[in-house]
């Protein structure tokens, strides 16, 4: 019964993926026949090549590759920066309580519940004033700031679950703020860093809203470019190219999950049970 249910549910989720994969491997004449579930008679990688290197968005016809490299350039600094800042935040809030630290934390958490929409326009002005509007750096800044509440919460709770006595012992041993952070806390916190990396990589990679607002065609991230390819209203709809482009875009989070899935679960569980 259990396996039956699981089977049905996995079929439900896998079927669209199957359709995407087979469609992306077909040529346009074959697609026009309308048998979307049938495997390709003639396997072709043409749509993948086209999606990566030739598909047109607006006046640029260099495919998704540009968006991919833009996304990479946005992703890496955003992930590193947001995790670095948030982990130190969380560590300070958990172990170096100062006057008003609880209030500070509460305000930060409330930040997670304010709808993004209300902040879009003010951010446009801020980015314009500091000269980062339309630049990759601006988007990195936006992602770092918006990742802060949830990541700080994540790290604070993890560090708070580490026995306080360890922290006290380190202080008696003469370690300072950074000494304790790097030598005691960091080596004990690999699982939560993995969780944070996964959250940030998938979140930032899949982001569309900030990408479409704070960049311009030259610096569009992959998701925005994908949208522009798929939603292009001119000419014929190349379903096979669209499918290939979508799969290419989804590949990065997919790989992250496959590689670190086990660590991810362990990290979530570690945060939950300890304490």
């Amino acid at each position, binding site marked *: 019964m259990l396996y039956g249910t699981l089977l049905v549910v996995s079929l439900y989720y896998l079927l669209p993926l199957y359709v995407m994969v087979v469609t992306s491997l077909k040529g346009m004449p074959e697609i026009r026949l309308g048998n979307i579930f049938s495997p390709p008679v003639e396997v072709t990688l043409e749509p993948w090549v086209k999606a990566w290197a030739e598909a047109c968005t607006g006046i640029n016809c260099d495919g998704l590759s540009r968006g991919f490299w833009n996304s990479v350039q946005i992703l890496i600094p955003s992930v590193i920066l947001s995790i670095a800042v948030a982990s130190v935040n969380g560590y300070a809030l958990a172990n170096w309580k100062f006057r008003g630290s609880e209030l500070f934390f509460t305000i930060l958490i409330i930040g997670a519940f304010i709808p993004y929409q209300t902040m879009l326009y003010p951010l446009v002005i801020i980015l314009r004033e500091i000269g980062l509007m339309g630049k990759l750096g601006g988007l990195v800044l936006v992602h770092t700031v918006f990742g802060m509440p949830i990541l700080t919460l994540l790290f604070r709770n993890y560090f708070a679950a580490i*026995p306080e006595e360890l922290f*006290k012992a*380190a202080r008696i041993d003469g370690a300072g703020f950074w000494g304790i952070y790097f*030598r005691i806390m960091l080596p004990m916190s690999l699982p939560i860093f993995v969780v944070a990396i996964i959250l940030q990589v998938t979140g930032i990679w899949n982001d569309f809203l900030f990408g479409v607002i704070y960049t311009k065609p030259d610096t569009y991230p992959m998701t925005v470019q994908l949208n522009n390819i798929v939603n292009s209203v001119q000419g014929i709809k190349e379903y096979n190219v669209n499918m290939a482009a979508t799969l290419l875009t989804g590949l990065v989070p997919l790989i992250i999950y496959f590689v670190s899935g086990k660590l991810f679960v362990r990290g979530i569980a570690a945060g939950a049970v300890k304490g």
Partner: protein
Amino acid sequence: MDTNIAIKNLDLSFGAINVLQDLNLDVAKGEFLVLLGSSGCGKSTLLNCIAGLLDVTDGQIHIGGRNVTWEEPSNRGIGMVFQSYALYPQMTVEGNLSFGLKNAGVSREQITEKVAQAAKTLQIEPLLKRKPRALSGGQRQRVAIGRALVRDVEVFLFDEPLSNLDAKLRAELRVEIKQLHQTLGNTMIYVTHDQIEAMTLADRIAIMKGGKILQLDTPNQIYNRPANKYVAEFIGSPTMNFFDGTLSGTAFSCPQGDFSVEGYEFAATPSAGATLLGIRPEHILTGDQAATAQVRLPATVDLVEPLGSDTLVRCDVAGQSVWARLDGQTPIEPGADLPLGFNANLVNLFSKTSENRL
């Protein structure tokens, strides 16, 4: 007395709650002082203040003649052993021992030398390359002590270091700590809620309640001459028996009878009035000794708890329960008549109003 630690008018409050109030304490060089009290009495808080892990609200702390009230924990000349030992899990034993020295900027050769020396003293040389999780409770504790030892500190602070262990290991490690104190001769302050640990380890015990020290004295004095009713009840198991009555001169009368307390050493000039008379279960006599005792009580056995080495008996004395500790070999059944007695030199008299010793 060569004072090593002096605590002067220490206050600590969290918001409106006063955890420690106007606390004064002097600890001599080389002394083993135990802070004893039930949970929430402020004993661990006091220890954390001495260590510098909590900022005091008012007052001063001097260690080794230096005012360290606002010094960093690492500059106070103290080492601390925690209840969970707090060994750094990702470091080997060697790493744990040398962490403090590295932070202090000690040279590599000196670190190796000091770690080796401490490991020898504590007999943990074969464990140096292991991680804490591969150590037993006793070994972990030794490493935790070693961490204080390598830093050549004057004062060792122990925060309930034995509470996590089972009874047998606890007894073994208690002996080890005592032995270590005899070998090293450092000043040690030890926090516990276990009266046996306190009695066996301490040169002096400070009994705390509500952020105040109720009595600071040798284990012998604390046991035999408790300063007030709380201390009398806290120390000793089963707890002291109390008779509620009135005192006039050396005559004490209560519903259970009139007792003469001739021979009792009064702390001050005896005052008449409502009084509590306390006698420890182990000072209650039975059999032939009861017949010749200064005070005799007819009693009926109510409950028997055999412990092997001795037997605890709850008796009914004219409507009041009285615990007595008997030799473990005496066969005794509930319902039997058991004449009890005691001598006035072993009783404790407390004023009923102030609860202080008379």
